[in-house]
Structure formats: C-alpha cells, structure tokens
C-alpha cells in the first residue's frame, strides 16, 4: 500500500500545497496546469454528484478509483479541499484527511498570522509536519503495494 501524492486547494481553486511521494508517472504538463486540471475535475465531479444523486446527500463526493489508484476527497464547509491519491488497497481516509486539516492546516497555517490565507503555503513547519504525518501513516509504506 502506498500514498502517491496530496493536493490542498482553497475555496477559490488556488492550490495551497502539493507534495508527492511515490509517483511513478508525471502528467507531462506544468504543475500549474495540472492543479487547474485537477481542480476543474473536482469542481465538475462535485456538481455532477450533487445533480445526479437521487437522494439528499450528506457528505457528497468522497472518492473514486481506477484500475491503478484511488483518489480520496475531503472538503470542509469553508471550502478547503484535501485530495490524496493512494493505491487501491487503502480504505476510507476521511479521518486521515480531516486530521490533516484540523491538526496541521489549522494549527500551522490558520493560527499563524504571518501565513496569508489563499496563497501557496510557504511554511516550512507545515511542510515538515505534513511530511512526517504522511510517512507515519500505516498504509504509507510501498512494500505491500
């Protein structure tokens, strides 16, 4: 099992943070274009899911998977979106993504008045904490994958 990469978007579609671990294939476009493409797709999936759902939804879009990877999605009511790609063996990650929001993003970015909101995150502290958080996840290791 493994974690491939992680995106954090804000409510306006700005990519606040990106990091990757076991990504074997790159998109072949610039990172900026990749972020836009990713956000555009997420935005469309959200509206698609809410229109197509035959019932009132609680959480909306949660995840999708292809033959090779799984995309986990978490959105806060303020519109912060955390997206993590893993391999197929990884179970529901909502708690993990919520934890990234509540113990990392809120603690090191929102509570740091010198971190402007709505821009790419520059905080070293945040990046290093996120790095160690992800590396310590039980499903991080690439061995079983």
């Amino acid at each position, binding site marked *: 099992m493994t974690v491939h990469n992680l995106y954090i978007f804000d*409510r*306006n*579609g*700005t990519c606040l943070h990106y990091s990757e671990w076991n990504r074997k294939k790159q998109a072949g476009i610039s990172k900026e274009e990749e972020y*836009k493409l990713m*956000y*555009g797709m997420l*935005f469309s999936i959200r509206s698609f899911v809410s229109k197509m759902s035959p019932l009132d939804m*609680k*959480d909306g879009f949660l995840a999708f998977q292809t033959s090779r990877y799984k995309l986990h999605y978490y959105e*806060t*009511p*303020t*519109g*912060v979106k955390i997206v993590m790609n893993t391999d197929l063996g990884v179970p529901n990650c909502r708690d993990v993504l919520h934890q990234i*929001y*509540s*113990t*990392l*993003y*809120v*603690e090191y970015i*929102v*509570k740091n008045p010198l971190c402007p*909101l709505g821009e790419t995150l520059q905080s070293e502290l945040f990046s290093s*904490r996120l790095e*160690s*958080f992800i590396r*310590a996840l039980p499903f991080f290791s690439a061995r079983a994958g």
Partner: protein
Amino acid sequence: MSRQSNRTTESKKMLWYLPFISASASMHRMNSELFTLTYGALVTQLCKDYENDEEVNKQLDKMGYNIGVRLIEDFLARSSVGRCHDFRETADVIAKVAFKMYLGITPSVTNWSPAGDEFSLILESNPLVDFVELPDNHSTLVYSNLLCGVLRGALEMVQMAVDVRFAQDTLRGDNVTEIRMKFIKRIEENLPAGDE
C-alpha cells in the same frame, strides 16, 4: 525496567502527534479575565487613536472580521459540525456550540422574523464587559463590536452573507444585550476564471 524503556520509545514515536483538541482550546479556559482585560486595553487604545466612536466601532468590526475568517477554521476543526442547511440550524450552532466554546456562554435565540431570515442572540452576560463602565462622552461606542465582525467574517467563510449589529446593550442602559443577525444571501461558489 524493560517496560520503562518500552514506554519511552513509544512516547518518542508519538511525539509528532498533536493533541486532537488544539492548544487554544485549553487557552481560553485558562484565563478569560486576561482576554477581557486585553480587549479592554484594545478598545481604550482605539479610543485614543481615533477621535470619534463611529471610527472605533468600524475598526473593531474590521478586526473582528479578520479574526472571524480564521476562527471559523479552528471552530470547524474542533467541533464536528458540518454544513448547515438553514439559518435556524446556523443560529443554534452559533449560540449553543460556538459561543459556548469561545466565550463560555450560551445566548438564547429569539425574535425570529416571520421569513426566518432574521433572529436575535440575547446575551445574559457578556464576558467582554466584565469590568467596564462606559463614560458619558462615549455614548455611541459599541463596546463589543468586535463580536459582530467575528460573526460576519466566520459566516462569510461558510458562504453566508449576514448583517450583524448590536440592537441592545446593557452597557448603554438596556435590560439585555441583544445581537441582531440578518441573513442577506448565499455566496455562490464560482469556478475560477481562466478555466475552460
């Protein structure tokens, strides 16, 4: 002995875990007097810096707004409150969860407008004014106006444009302190410009 060493490695391994309740959660329980007095010093300084009360009110509101847009993230991270589906639910969350969490009080929600887009928060006690007496020459000062800004800023971040103002204030001789909230509109999310 071996058990002892075992425990230390375990705690070392756990070092990077943050407490699930954030640091500020225990902070405000620690000393609300410090908060009240700091707020008092802030208002005093603003009154010195600006000639008229209107301007002080405006500055307090602006500062509150800036606090609110950040505070909402802390609030959502610590409470497991999801998106509210109507204004009544919002009112309940504000009064019963948010005020309780940050100020230790639970205002009552009353005076609903027939359309359900307007309500009042009645504060039995206002921790911000614990040691305050308004001098006569500040009759138009809305001492706790920071709260209005906080509410407005926080709600704006969850796509709600709301008008917030003090309708009554015990500091100015009213029987109760009343914050009036009026729902203006839902802020729509847009796809950022430049996308196909």
